[in-house]
């Protein structure tokens, strides 16, 4: 069985666990909807147009939800030592990382779709632009979020600071994702041509590929006893 197949099996196992227990997923979904609701209330739309800030708020909600969820990726497996048993199986650390990142990514995609729909609705963004252009921006951006969250989520499990540590470690690294993601999404909302967006999308892809490779290469240092 090759490593990618093993990673895929870990993804399926994690997703099955995620949907059976449902706690983390439900909490993230509730967070996204409530955050969108609160942003819409907090924003004085007679002074600031919702459309002008929607892109930034969507990315921030995705960032906060994925960070809150990342702290819980390994929770279920930590009980009864299941993660330790996973480490004892003949699956390489990069394959475990890739499998868990892919499962985390699937959850983040769900959160992203929900954040996009709820915030554009709450903030009154009627013309959202090209779906293909949004996909080309959100795909690499969420891969970067998932890989970084999975990697540092493992680290925060062993910290007495717990989930408080996670934003301190991840936010400085994720600034490029938020910056290029939010500016690109804002341009898609405005219906700008693809050449104005492609530069940021390429940088998001560079971050996504870099974070997956670096995470896979260094994952054994945050898992081995």
């Amino acid at each position, binding site marked *: 069985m090759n490593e990618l197949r093993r990673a895929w099996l870990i993804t399926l196992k994690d997703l099955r666990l995620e949907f059976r227990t449902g706690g983390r997923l439900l909490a993230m979904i509730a967070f996204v909807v409530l955050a969108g609701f609160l942003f819409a209330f907090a924003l004085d739309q007679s002074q600031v147009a919702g459309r002008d800030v929607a892109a930034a708020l969507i990315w921030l909600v995705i960032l906060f939800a994925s960070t809150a969820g990342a702290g819980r990726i390994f929770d279920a497996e930590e009980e009864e030592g299941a993660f330790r048993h996973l480490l004892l199986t003949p699956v390489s650390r990069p394959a475990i990382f890739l499998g868990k990142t892919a499962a985390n990514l699937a959850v983040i995609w769900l959160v992203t779709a929900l954040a996009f729909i709820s915030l554009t609705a709450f903030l009154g963004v009627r013309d959202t632009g090209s779906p293909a252009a949004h996909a080309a921006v959100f795909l690499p951006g969420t891969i970067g979020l998932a890989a970084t969250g999975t990697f540092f989520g493992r680290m925060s499990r062993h*910290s007495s600071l717990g989930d408080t540590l996670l934003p301190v470690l991840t936010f400085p690294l994720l600034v490029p994702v938020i910056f290029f993601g939010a500016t690109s999404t804002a341009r898609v909302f405005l219906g700008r041509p693809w050449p104005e967006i492609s530069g940021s999308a390429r940088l998001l892809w560079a971050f996504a590929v870099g974070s997956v490779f670096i995470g896979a290469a260094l994952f054994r240092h945050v898992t081995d006893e």
Partner: protein
Amino acid sequence: MSTKGRIAGLALVTAGVATILLVHWMVAFWVPNEAAQGVVQRIFYVHVPAAWTTFLAVGIVAIASAVYLWLEDERADAAAVAAAEGALIFGAIMLITGPLWGRIAWGTYWEWEPRLTLTLLLWFTYLGYFLVRSSVADPRRGKRFAAVVAVVGSLNIPLIHVSVEWFRSLHPEAVVIKPEGPTLPSDMLATLLTSLAGFTMLFLGLFTFRYAVERLRRRTPPTATGETDEALI
């Protein structure tokens, strides 16, 4: 700490402090005003060396951390901790002097432009480095996690360097390390190089002492409570 190490550390700190005092005299009485910015540009002779020293320290942390991850050698981790403290202190000097200069030169204390933002984020990454170390119960694991944070954080350094060229920025471009050679007038260049030497010597001296203290702390036997007795150092 060996006698040689103590003499080297003391010599570096003394030479560093003396050179920085000389630089302050040069800045106050010798170097001329920069034509466009006037007297405020003189903060350049503290800001740039502080930035250089920060990146030198960050480079040492990154290399020492990579070596620690590879060999799990305690000396590499001690060197990384000693340099990381230097990175935080000199980074704080850089982040304080930059806005003071910017207030007059740009009319604002802070501008969310790439080099400033990435440098601030690098500083926060190193804050995270110490948080990770102190918050993980198993010391060996804490060291390994901190080394990972340092290696990942160091990837920011090349990005900070090229950010001025890549993105439109208020931050001045390099005036010393350029393909066509330094474009700074000779008296300003002399003051800057003297300051760079002073800051580098001071950092290396402090680094030598801090490394020795860290090594000593790890060799000190634990007390009855299981804690290393800091008072013995």
